[in-house]
Protein backbone atom coordinates (compact mmCIF):
# COMPACT_ATOMS: atom_id res chain seq x y z
CA UNK A 1 0.00 0.00 0.00
CA UNK A 2 1.15 3.51 -0.73
CA UNK A 3 1.58 6.24 1.83
CA UNK A 4 -1.46 8.47 2.21
CA UNK A 5 0.41 10.82 4.49
CA UNK A 6 4.15 11.16 4.79
CA UNK A 7 5.72 13.30 7.44
CA UNK A 8 9.36 13.81 6.58
CA UNK A 9 11.87 15.19 9.06
CA UNK A 10 9.46 17.82 10.27
CA UNK A 11 10.62 20.36 12.80
CA UNK A 12 8.55 23.01 14.49
CA UNK A 13 9.45 25.49 17.15
CA UNK A 14 7.55 28.31 18.80
CA UNK A 15 8.72 31.69 19.84
CA UNK A 16 7.96 32.07 23.49
CA UNK A 17 8.58 34.75 26.06
CA UNK A 18 9.35 33.46 29.50
CA UNK A 19 8.20 36.66 31.15
CA UNK A 20 6.78 39.90 29.80
CA UNK A 21 9.35 42.30 28.46
CA UNK A 22 12.00 39.64 28.06
CA UNK A 23 13.43 38.62 24.73
CA UNK A 24 11.59 35.83 23.01
CA UNK A 25 13.37 32.55 22.50
CA UNK A 26 12.72 29.48 20.46
CA UNK A 27 11.27 26.41 22.02
CA UNK A 28 11.37 23.22 20.04
CA UNK A 29 7.99 21.56 19.98
CA UNK A 30 8.70 18.93 17.33
CA UNK A 31 12.12 17.73 16.30
CA UNK A 32 12.62 15.52 13.30
CA UNK A 33 9.25 13.81 13.12
CA UNK A 34 9.25 11.05 10.56
CA UNK A 35 6.11 9.02 9.97
CA UNK A 36 4.27 7.39 7.11
CA UNK A 37 0.58 6.64 7.31
CA UNK A 38 -0.87 4.24 4.77
CA UNK A 39 -4.06 4.72 2.82
CA UNK A 40 -6.96 3.64 5.02
CA UNK A 41 -4.85 3.14 8.07
CA UNK A 42 -5.90 3.77 11.65
CA UNK A 43 -2.89 5.37 13.25
CA UNK A 44 -2.89 6.25 16.92
CA UNK A 45 -0.43 8.66 18.48
CA UNK A 46 0.31 8.65 22.19
CA UNK A 47 2.80 10.76 24.09
CA UNK A 48 3.25 12.76 27.25
CA UNK A 49 1.45 16.05 27.67
CA UNK A 50 3.16 18.92 25.89
CA UNK A 51 5.17 16.71 23.55
CA UNK A 52 3.68 18.31 20.46
CA UNK A 53 0.80 16.05 19.43
CA UNK A 54 -1.63 18.89 18.81
CA UNK A 55 1.13 20.82 17.07
CA UNK A 56 1.61 17.90 14.69
CA UNK A 57 -2.11 17.76 13.99
CA UNK A 58 -2.18 21.48 13.20
CA UNK A 59 0.60 20.91 10.70
CA UNK A 60 -1.31 18.07 9.06
CA UNK A 61 -4.44 20.21 8.92
CA UNK A 62 -2.41 22.84 7.09
CA UNK A 63 -3.11 25.46 9.73
CA UNK A 64 0.57 26.03 10.43
CA UNK A 65 3.74 25.42 8.47
CA UNK A 66 6.77 23.41 9.58
CA UNK A 67 10.11 25.16 10.13
CA UNK A 68 11.76 22.48 8.06
CA UNK A 69 10.83 19.13 6.55
CA UNK A 70 7.82 18.17 4.50
CA UNK A 71 4.29 16.98 5.01
CA UNK A 72 2.80 15.18 2.05
CA UNK A 73 -0.75 14.12 1.36
CA UNK A 74 -1.06 11.73 -1.57
CA UNK A 75 2.49 12.71 -2.49
CA UNK A 76 1.66 16.40 -2.69
CA UNK A 77 2.85 18.90 -0.15
CA UNK A 78 0.15 20.13 2.20
CA UNK A 79 -0.36 23.74 1.22
CA UNK A 80 -3.17 24.75 3.52
CA UNK A 81 -6.41 23.67 5.12
CA UNK A 82 -8.97 21.91 2.98
CA UNK A 83 -12.08 19.80 3.32
CA UNK A 84 -10.19 16.65 2.36
CA UNK A 85 -9.03 16.56 5.98
CA UNK A 86 -11.42 16.75 8.90
CA UNK A 87 -10.12 17.80 12.27
CA UNK A 88 -11.64 17.27 15.70
CA UNK A 89 -10.01 19.73 18.07
CA UNK A 90 -9.06 18.90 21.61
CA UNK A 91 -11.24 21.79 22.86
CA UNK A 92 -14.33 21.15 20.67
CA UNK A 93 -14.18 24.54 18.90
CA UNK A 94 -17.92 24.69 18.26
CA UNK A 95 -19.42 27.98 17.12
CA UNK A 96 -21.38 29.18 20.14
CA UNK A 97 -23.90 31.15 18.06
CA UNK A 98 -24.93 28.09 16.09
CA UNK A 99 -27.11 25.24 17.24
CA UNK A 100 -25.75 21.70 17.27
CA UNK A 101 -27.34 21.06 13.89
CA UNK A 102 -26.05 24.31 12.36
CA UNK A 103 -22.58 23.52 13.67
CA UNK A 104 -22.63 20.18 11.90
CA UNK A 105 -23.89 21.93 8.77
CA UNK A 106 -21.04 24.41 8.80
CA UNK A 107 -18.54 22.31 6.93
CA UNK A 108 -21.20 21.22 4.44
CA UNK A 109 -21.99 24.86 3.81
CA UNK A 110 -18.33 25.50 3.05
CA UNK A 111 -18.47 22.58 0.66
CA UNK A 112 -21.34 24.22 -1.23
CA UNK A 113 -23.99 21.59 -0.59
CA UNK A 114 -27.65 22.58 -0.99
CA UNK A 115 -29.58 23.60 2.09
CA UNK A 116 -31.93 20.63 2.00
CA UNK A 117 -29.22 18.06 1.63
CA UNK A 118 -27.15 19.80 4.27
CA UNK A 119 -29.93 19.53 6.80
CA UNK A 120 -30.51 15.87 6.05
CA UNK A 121 -26.85 14.94 6.27
CA UNK A 122 -26.38 16.90 9.47
CA UNK A 123 -29.37 15.18 11.07
CA UNK A 124 -27.97 11.82 10.09
CA UNK A 125 -24.63 12.49 11.77
CA UNK A 126 -26.25 14.03 14.84
CA UNK A 127 -28.19 10.84 15.34
CA UNK A 128 -25.08 8.80 14.64
CA UNK A 129 -23.35 10.34 17.64
CA UNK A 130 -26.51 9.79 19.71
CA UNK A 131 -27.69 13.38 19.97
CA UNK A 132 -31.10 13.15 18.30
CA UNK A 133 -33.41 15.56 20.09
CA UNK A 134 -30.59 17.97 20.79
CA UNK A 135 -30.33 19.40 17.27
CA UNK A 136 -31.55 22.82 18.25
CA UNK A 137 -29.54 23.25 21.42
CA UNK A 138 -26.79 25.82 21.55
CA UNK A 139 -23.34 24.68 22.69
CA UNK A 140 -23.73 26.29 26.12
CA UNK A 141 -26.76 24.06 26.65
CA UNK A 142 -24.72 20.91 26.04
CA UNK A 143 -22.39 19.03 28.36
CA UNK A 144 -18.70 18.68 27.54
CA UNK A 145 -19.18 15.18 26.18
CA UNK A 146 -22.14 16.28 24.06
CA UNK A 147 -20.11 19.14 22.59
CA UNK A 148 -17.35 16.71 21.81
CA UNK A 149 -19.86 14.50 19.98
CA UNK A 150 -21.16 17.46 17.96
CA UNK A 151 -17.57 18.24 16.98
CA UNK A 152 -17.10 14.63 15.88
CA UNK A 153 -20.33 14.73 13.87
CA UNK A 154 -19.22 17.97 12.26
CA UNK A 155 -15.95 16.55 11.02
CA UNK A 156 -17.57 13.32 9.83
CA UNK A 157 -20.39 15.13 8.02
CA UNK A 158 -18.36 16.67 5.23
CA UNK A 159 -16.85 13.31 4.51
CA UNK A 160 -13.10 14.02 4.52
CA UNK A 161 -10.64 11.39 3.30
CA UNK A 162 -8.49 11.87 6.36
CA UNK A 163 -9.73 12.30 9.92
CA UNK A 164 -7.42 14.05 12.37
CA UNK A 165 -8.73 13.54 15.89
CA UNK A 166 -7.20 15.16 18.96
CA UNK A 167 -8.29 13.26 22.06
CA UNK A 168 -11.87 13.21 20.82
CA UNK A 169 -13.22 10.90 23.51
CA UNK A 170 -11.41 12.38 26.48
CA UNK A 171 -14.46 14.17 27.89
CA UNK A 172 -16.87 11.25 27.62
CA UNK A 173 -18.12 8.80 30.19
CA UNK A 174 -16.95 5.22 29.84
CA UNK A 175 -20.15 3.91 28.22
CA UNK A 176 -20.44 6.67 25.67
CA UNK A 177 -16.76 6.38 24.91
CA UNK A 178 -17.10 2.67 24.20
CA UNK A 179 -20.12 3.25 22.00
CA UNK A 180 -18.33 5.91 20.02
CA UNK A 181 -15.14 3.87 19.80
CA UNK A 182 -16.96 1.01 18.14
CA UNK A 183 -18.96 3.48 16.04
CA UNK A 184 -15.72 5.04 14.84
CA UNK A 185 -14.33 1.61 14.01
CA UNK A 186 -17.50 0.82 12.09
CA UNK A 187 -17.28 4.06 10.11
CA UNK A 188 -13.61 3.47 9.47
CA UNK A 189 -14.24 -0.06 8.21
CA UNK A 190 -17.18 1.06 6.08
CA UNK A 191 -15.58 4.13 4.53
CA UNK A 192 -11.91 3.29 4.41
CA UNK A 193 -10.94 6.68 5.77
CA UNK A 194 -7.41 7.28 6.94
CA UNK A 195 -7.50 8.20 10.62
CA UNK A 196 -4.89 9.80 12.81
CA UNK A 197 -6.08 9.61 16.38
CA UNK A 198 -4.43 11.16 19.40
CA UNK A 199 -5.21 9.78 22.83
CA UNK A 200 -4.02 9.61 26.39
CA UNK A 201 -5.65 6.26 26.95
CA UNK A 202 -3.37 3.30 26.43
CA UNK A 203 -6.35 0.93 26.32
CA UNK A 204 -8.00 3.09 23.71
CA UNK A 205 -4.80 3.20 21.67
CA UNK A 206 -4.44 -0.58 21.59
CA UNK A 207 -8.12 -1.12 20.96
CA UNK A 208 -8.43 1.32 18.06
CA UNK A 209 -5.06 1.52 16.37
CA UNK A 210 -3.53 -0.65 13.70
CA UNK A 211 -0.31 0.98 14.69
CA UNK A 212 0.49 3.07 17.74
CA UNK A 213 3.18 5.73 17.47
CA UNK A 214 4.71 6.59 20.82
CA UNK A 215 6.17 10.07 21.02
CA UNK A 216 8.99 11.19 23.27
CA UNK A 217 8.74 14.12 25.65
CA UNK A 218 9.40 17.59 24.32
CA UNK A 219 10.84 18.18 21.81
CA UNK A 220 8.62 15.50 20.33
CA UNK A 221 10.03 12.73 18.21
CA UNK A 222 8.49 9.42 17.23
CA UNK A 223 10.10 7.14 19.76
CA UNK A 224 8.74 3.88 18.47
CA UNK A 225 5.88 2.49 16.44
CA UNK A 226 4.07 -0.53 17.83
CA UNK A 227 2.14 -2.79 15.48
CA UNK A 228 -1.22 -3.95 16.75
CA UNK A 229 -1.89 -7.09 14.77
CA UNK A 230 -5.56 -7.78 15.59
CA UNK A 231 -7.70 -8.68 12.60
CA UNK A 232 -11.13 -7.75 13.87
CA UNK A 233 -11.81 -5.49 16.79
CA UNK A 234 -15.54 -5.82 16.84
CA UNK A 235 -15.77 -8.02 19.86
CA UNK A 236 -14.29 -5.79 22.46
CA UNK A 237 -14.79 -7.92 25.56
CA UNK A 238 -12.78 -10.73 24.04
CA UNK A 239 -10.15 -8.33 22.85
CA UNK A 240 -9.49 -6.71 26.20
CA UNK A 241 -8.94 -10.03 27.93
CA UNK A 242 -6.80 -11.33 25.10
CA UNK A 243 -3.26 -11.97 26.45
CA UNK A 244 -1.84 -10.30 23.35
CA UNK A 245 -3.83 -7.15 24.18
CA UNK A 246 -2.45 -7.14 27.70
CA UNK A 247 1.08 -7.62 26.41
CA UNK A 248 0.80 -4.75 23.91
CA UNK A 249 -0.68 -2.46 26.50
CA UNK A 250 2.21 -3.20 28.79
CA UNK A 251 4.72 -2.59 26.01
CA UNK A 252 3.30 0.85 25.26
CA UNK A 253 3.09 1.64 28.93
CA UNK A 254 6.79 0.83 29.34
CA UNK A 255 7.64 3.02 26.37
CA UNK A 256 5.65 5.89 27.79
CA UNK A 257 6.77 5.62 31.39
CA UNK A 258 10.20 7.17 30.93
CA UNK A 259 8.86 9.87 28.66
CA UNK A 260 6.17 10.81 31.07
CA UNK A 261 8.56 11.16 33.98
CA UNK A 262 10.94 13.14 31.78
CA UNK A 263 8.08 15.40 30.74
CA UNK A 264 7.20 15.76 34.40
CA UNK A 265 10.69 16.81 35.26
CA UNK A 266 10.54 19.25 32.39
CA UNK A 267 7.31 20.85 33.28
CA UNK A 268 6.79 19.82 36.88
CA UNK A 269 3.14 19.30 36.25
CA UNK A 270 0.80 16.45 36.80
CA UNK A 271 1.25 14.83 33.46
CA UNK A 272 0.52 11.40 34.85
CA UNK A 273 -2.95 12.50 35.86
CA UNK A 274 -3.81 13.46 32.32
CA UNK A 275 -2.98 9.91 31.32
CA UNK A 276 -6.11 8.81 33.09
CA UNK A 277 -4.50 8.62 36.51
CA UNK A 278 -1.98 6.26 37.94
CA UNK A 279 -4.46 3.42 38.00
CA UNK A 280 -4.51 3.16 34.24
CA UNK A 281 -0.78 2.99 34.13
CA UNK A 282 -0.52 0.53 36.97
CA UNK A 283 -3.21 -1.63 35.47
CA UNK A 284 -1.27 -1.53 32.25
CA UNK A 285 1.79 -2.65 34.15
CA UNK A 286 0.08 -5.39 36.09
Amino acid at each position, binding site marked *: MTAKISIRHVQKSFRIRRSPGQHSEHQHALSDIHLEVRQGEFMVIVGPSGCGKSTLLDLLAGLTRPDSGQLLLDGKEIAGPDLDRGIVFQQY*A*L*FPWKTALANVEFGLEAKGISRRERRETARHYISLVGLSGFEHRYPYELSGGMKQRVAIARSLAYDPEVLLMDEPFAALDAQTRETLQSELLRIWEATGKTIIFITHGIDEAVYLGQRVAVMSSRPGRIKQIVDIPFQSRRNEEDLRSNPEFVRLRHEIWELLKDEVSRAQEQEKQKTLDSFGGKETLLKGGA
Partner: protein
Amino acid sequence: MAGGRGETLILQEKKSLNWGWPLAQLRKAIKNSIVILAMLVIWEAAPRAGLVNTTFLPPVTEVAAAWWQLLLSGDLAEHMGASLARSMGGFLLAILISIPLGLAIGWWKPVSEYLNPLLELMRNTAALAILPVFILLLGLGETSKVAIVLYACLFPLLLNTISGVKNVDPLLIKSARSMGLSPVSLFRKVIIPASLPTIFVGIRQAGASSILVLVAAEMVGATSGLGYLIQYSQFSFLIPQMYAGIITISVIGVILNFLLVNLEKRLTGWKQSYRE
Protein backbone atom coordinates in the same frame (compact mmCIF):
# COMPACT_ATOMS: atom_id res chain seq x y z
CA MET B 1 -27.48 5.16 24.11
CA ALA B 2 -25.89 5.99 27.42
CA GLY B 3 -27.31 9.06 29.10
CA GLY B 4 -30.64 8.63 27.34
CA ARG B 5 -32.56 8.71 30.58
CA GLY B 6 -30.82 11.83 31.73
CA GLU B 7 -31.76 13.51 28.49
CA THR B 8 -35.49 12.88 28.84
CA LEU B 9 -35.29 14.08 32.42
CA ILE B 10 -33.85 17.39 31.27
CA LEU B 11 -36.62 17.79 28.73
CA GLN B 12 -39.29 17.19 31.35
CA GLU B 13 -37.73 19.71 33.63
CA LYS B 14 -38.01 22.33 30.91
CA LYS B 15 -41.68 21.57 30.49
CA SER B 16 -42.52 21.86 34.16
CA LEU B 17 -40.69 25.16 34.20
CA ASN B 18 -43.00 26.37 31.45
CA TRP B 19 -46.01 25.54 33.59
CA GLY B 20 -45.01 28.04 36.23
CA TRP B 21 -44.55 30.75 33.65
CA PRO B 22 -47.52 33.14 34.29
CA LEU B 23 -46.90 33.21 38.01
CA ALA B 24 -43.21 33.91 37.61
CA GLN B 25 -44.03 36.63 35.09
CA LEU B 26 -46.39 38.29 37.52
CA ARG B 27 -43.87 38.15 40.32
CA LYS B 28 -41.27 39.70 38.06
CA ALA B 29 -43.63 42.53 37.08
CA ILE B 30 -44.28 43.31 40.73
CA LYS B 31 -40.59 43.20 41.54
CA ASN B 32 -39.81 45.57 38.71
CA SER B 33 -42.42 48.19 39.49
CA ILE B 34 -42.87 48.21 43.27
CA VAL B 35 -40.05 50.62 44.10
CA ILE B 36 -41.05 53.01 41.37
CA LEU B 37 -44.65 52.96 42.56
CA ALA B 38 -43.48 53.63 46.10
CA MET B 39 -41.42 56.55 44.89
CA LEU B 40 -44.38 58.02 43.03
CA VAL B 41 -46.49 57.74 46.16
CA ILE B 42 -43.86 59.57 48.18
CA TRP B 43 -43.57 62.22 45.47
CA GLU B 44 -47.31 62.77 45.69
CA ALA B 45 -47.55 62.69 49.47
CA ALA B 46 -44.49 64.68 50.49
CA PRO B 47 -45.42 68.01 48.82
CA ARG B 48 -49.06 67.66 49.88
CA ALA B 49 -48.06 67.03 53.49
CA GLY B 50 -45.92 70.14 53.36
CA LEU B 51 -42.65 68.24 53.81
CA VAL B 52 -41.16 69.93 50.74
CA ASN B 53 -41.91 73.21 49.06
CA THR B 54 -44.61 72.66 46.43
CA THR B 55 -43.14 75.41 44.27
CA PHE B 56 -39.94 73.45 43.75
CA LEU B 57 -41.41 69.97 43.85
CA PRO B 58 -45.06 69.92 42.86
CA PRO B 59 -47.01 66.68 43.53
CA VAL B 60 -46.69 64.10 40.81
CA THR B 61 -50.34 64.46 39.77
CA GLU B 62 -49.72 68.10 39.00
CA VAL B 63 -46.71 67.16 36.90
CA ALA B 64 -48.84 64.56 35.14
CA ALA B 65 -51.50 67.17 34.42
CA ALA B 66 -48.85 69.53 33.01
CA TRP B 67 -47.53 66.66 30.88
CA TRP B 68 -51.04 65.99 29.59
CA GLN B 69 -51.45 69.66 28.70
CA LEU B 70 -48.15 69.64 26.84
CA LEU B 71 -49.26 66.55 24.99
CA LEU B 72 -52.63 68.02 24.01
CA SER B 73 -51.17 71.32 22.86
CA GLY B 74 -48.79 69.44 20.60
CA ASP B 75 -45.75 71.10 22.19
CA LEU B 76 -44.50 67.84 23.61
CA ALA B 77 -44.67 66.06 20.28
CA GLU B 78 -42.80 68.89 18.62
CA HIS B 79 -39.97 68.97 21.16
CA MET B 80 -39.78 65.23 21.33
CA GLY B 81 -39.70 64.96 17.57
CA ALA B 82 -36.87 67.47 17.37
CA SER B 83 -34.86 65.69 20.05
CA LEU B 84 -35.43 62.22 18.68
CA ALA B 85 -34.51 63.26 15.15
CA ARG B 86 -31.21 64.67 16.39
CA SER B 87 -30.23 61.88 18.72
CA MET B 88 -31.36 59.05 16.47
CA GLY B 89 -29.74 60.77 13.50
CA GLY B 90 -26.42 61.03 15.27
CA PHE B 91 -26.74 57.56 16.77
CA LEU B 92 -27.56 55.82 13.49
CA LEU B 93 -24.90 57.76 11.63
CA ALA B 94 -22.39 56.67 14.28
CA ILE B 95 -23.44 53.04 13.84
CA LEU B 96 -23.12 53.31 10.08
CA ILE B 97 -19.64 54.77 10.35
CA SER B 98 -18.04 53.07 13.31
CA ILE B 99 -19.13 49.45 13.00
CA PRO B 100 -17.66 48.89 9.53
CA LEU B 101 -14.66 51.02 10.46
CA GLY B 102 -14.19 49.16 13.74
CA LEU B 103 -14.43 45.78 12.01
CA ALA B 104 -11.73 46.83 9.57
CA ILE B 105 -9.46 48.32 12.21
CA GLY B 106 -9.89 45.34 14.53
CA TRP B 107 -9.06 42.86 11.81
CA TRP B 108 -6.01 44.79 10.76
CA LYS B 109 -4.03 44.38 13.96
CA PRO B 110 -1.11 46.78 13.39
CA VAL B 111 -3.51 49.60 12.57
CA SER B 112 -5.52 49.03 15.71
CA GLU B 113 -2.40 49.07 17.85
CA TYR B 114 -1.47 52.48 16.47
CA LEU B 115 -4.96 53.90 16.64
CA ASN B 116 -6.09 52.62 20.01
CA PRO B 117 -4.37 55.21 22.24
CA LEU B 118 -5.84 58.03 20.16
CA LEU B 119 -9.31 56.50 20.27
CA GLU B 120 -9.07 55.96 24.03
CA LEU B 121 -8.09 59.58 24.46
CA MET B 122 -10.95 60.82 22.31
CA ARG B 123 -13.43 58.60 24.07
CA ASN B 124 -12.39 60.08 27.36
CA THR B 125 -12.67 63.62 26.07
CA ALA B 126 -16.14 64.47 27.36
CA ALA B 127 -18.28 65.23 24.36
CA LEU B 128 -19.77 68.23 26.14
CA ALA B 129 -16.34 69.69 26.74
CA ILE B 130 -15.88 70.14 23.04
CA LEU B 131 -19.42 71.33 22.39
CA PRO B 132 -18.15 74.93 22.14
CA VAL B 133 -15.80 73.81 19.37
CA PHE B 134 -18.71 72.28 17.47
CA ILE B 135 -20.82 75.39 17.90
CA LEU B 136 -17.89 77.52 16.75
CA LEU B 137 -17.38 75.42 13.66
CA LEU B 138 -20.92 74.40 12.80
CA GLY B 139 -23.06 77.12 14.28
CA LEU B 140 -26.05 76.79 16.58
CA GLY B 141 -28.23 74.86 14.09
CA GLU B 142 -29.08 71.21 13.72
CA THR B 143 -25.68 70.26 12.32
CA SER B 144 -23.77 70.96 15.51
CA LYS B 145 -26.33 69.03 17.56
CA VAL B 146 -26.26 65.95 15.37
CA ALA B 147 -22.49 66.27 15.24
CA ILE B 148 -22.12 66.27 19.01
CA VAL B 149 -24.31 63.18 19.30
CA LEU B 150 -22.34 61.54 16.54
CA TYR B 151 -19.13 62.33 18.35
CA ALA B 152 -20.41 60.97 21.64
CA CYS B 153 -21.63 57.73 20.03
CA LEU B 154 -18.68 57.16 17.75
CA PHE B 155 -16.04 56.19 20.26
CA PRO B 156 -17.81 53.69 22.47
CA LEU B 157 -19.03 51.99 19.30
CA LEU B 158 -15.66 52.04 17.62
CA LEU B 159 -13.70 50.84 20.62
CA ASN B 160 -16.13 48.05 21.41
CA THR B 161 -16.25 46.87 17.81
CA ILE B 162 -12.47 46.82 17.63
CA SER B 163 -12.10 44.89 20.85
CA GLY B 164 -14.88 42.53 19.77
CA VAL B 165 -13.01 41.63 16.61
CA LYS B 166 -9.67 41.40 18.35
CA ASN B 167 -10.99 39.11 21.04
CA VAL B 168 -12.64 36.51 18.84
CA ASP B 169 -11.55 33.13 20.18
CA PRO B 170 -8.58 32.13 17.98
CA LEU B 171 -9.71 28.52 18.25
CA LEU B 172 -12.93 29.37 16.38
CA ILE B 173 -10.92 31.01 13.63
CA LYS B 174 -8.70 27.96 13.51
CA SER B 175 -11.69 25.66 13.36
CA ALA B 176 -13.28 27.66 10.52
CA ARG B 177 -10.00 27.84 8.63
CA SER B 178 -9.57 24.08 8.95
CA MET B 179 -12.77 23.75 6.92
CA GLY B 180 -11.20 25.72 4.12
CA LEU B 181 -13.14 28.96 4.59
CA SER B 182 -12.00 31.89 2.49
CA PRO B 183 -10.99 35.07 4.35
CA VAL B 184 -14.21 36.76 3.24
CA SER B 185 -16.53 34.03 4.50
CA LEU B 186 -14.39 33.70 7.61
CA PHE B 187 -15.11 37.33 8.31
CA ARG B 188 -18.79 37.06 7.52
CA LYS B 189 -19.52 33.75 9.19
CA VAL B 190 -17.19 33.80 12.16
CA ILE B 191 -15.68 37.18 13.00
CA ILE B 192 -18.89 39.18 12.82
CA PRO B 193 -21.17 36.81 14.76
CA ALA B 194 -18.45 36.20 17.35
CA SER B 195 -17.91 39.89 17.98
CA LEU B 196 -21.59 40.79 18.00
CA PRO B 197 -22.02 40.64 21.81
CA THR B 198 -19.17 43.10 22.34
CA ILE B 199 -20.45 45.32 19.54
CA PHE B 200 -23.77 45.40 21.34
CA VAL B 201 -22.14 46.66 24.51
CA GLY B 202 -21.00 49.59 22.40
CA ILE B 203 -24.43 50.06 20.86
CA ARG B 204 -26.06 50.28 24.27
CA GLN B 205 -23.44 52.68 25.60
CA ALA B 206 -23.88 54.82 22.51
CA GLY B 207 -27.67 54.73 22.78
CA ALA B 208 -27.51 56.01 26.36
CA SER B 209 -25.04 58.76 25.62
CA SER B 210 -26.93 59.86 22.49
CA ILE B 211 -29.76 61.10 24.69
CA LEU B 212 -27.60 62.32 27.55
CA VAL B 213 -25.40 64.48 25.38
CA LEU B 214 -28.21 65.81 23.26
CA VAL B 215 -30.28 67.10 26.16
CA ALA B 216 -27.30 68.99 27.50
CA ALA B 217 -26.54 70.38 24.04
CA GLU B 218 -30.11 71.55 23.65
CA MET B 219 -29.84 73.50 26.87
CA VAL B 220 -27.05 75.59 25.44
CA GLY B 221 -28.36 76.95 22.20
CA ALA B 222 -31.60 75.66 20.81
CA THR B 223 -35.17 76.73 20.14
CA SER B 224 -36.70 73.28 20.25
CA GLY B 225 -36.12 69.90 21.81
CA LEU B 226 -36.66 68.43 25.26
CA GLY B 227 -33.51 70.00 26.65
CA TYR B 228 -34.78 73.36 25.50
CA LEU B 229 -38.21 72.62 27.00
CA ILE B 230 -36.69 71.92 30.40
CA GLN B 231 -34.43 74.94 30.34
CA TYR B 232 -37.18 77.25 29.08
CA SER B 233 -39.72 75.98 31.66
CA GLN B 234 -37.25 76.57 34.45
CA PHE B 235 -36.56 80.14 33.30
CA SER B 236 -40.29 80.82 32.99
CA PHE B 237 -40.91 79.20 36.37
CA LEU B 238 -43.23 76.58 34.87
CA ILE B 239 -42.00 74.01 37.33
CA PRO B 240 -44.55 71.20 36.61
CA GLN B 241 -43.71 71.52 32.89
CA MET B 242 -40.01 71.25 33.72
CA TYR B 243 -40.56 67.99 35.59
CA ALA B 244 -42.78 66.76 32.75
CA GLY B 245 -39.86 67.31 30.37
CA ILE B 246 -37.41 65.54 32.68
CA ILE B 247 -39.67 62.52 33.05
CA THR B 248 -40.22 62.33 29.30
CA ILE B 249 -36.47 62.13 28.77
CA SER B 250 -36.08 59.40 31.38
CA VAL B 251 -38.87 57.40 29.81
CA ILE B 252 -37.36 57.77 26.33
CA GLY B 253 -34.03 56.58 27.72
CA VAL B 254 -35.65 53.55 29.33
CA ILE B 255 -37.61 52.68 26.17
CA LEU B 256 -34.51 52.98 23.99
CA ASN B 257 -32.54 50.76 26.33
CA PHE B 258 -35.39 48.26 26.45
CA LEU B 259 -35.52 48.10 22.65
CA LEU B 260 -31.77 47.68 22.39
CA VAL B 261 -31.66 44.99 25.06
CA ASN B 262 -34.42 43.10 23.29
CA LEU B 263 -32.67 43.34 19.96
CA GLU B 264 -29.51 42.16 21.64
CA LYS B 265 -31.27 39.19 23.17
CA ARG B 266 -32.71 38.25 19.81
CA LEU B 267 -29.37 38.49 18.04
CA THR B 268 -27.12 37.04 20.71
CA GLY B 269 -29.50 34.61 22.40
CA TRP B 270 -26.85 31.93 22.05
CA LYS B 271 -24.88 33.51 24.82
CA GLN B 272 -25.08 31.83 28.17
CA SER B 273 -26.91 33.91 30.70
CA TYR B 274 -25.39 33.38 34.10
CA ARG B 275 -28.32 34.86 35.92
CA GLU B 276 -30.61 31.88 35.43
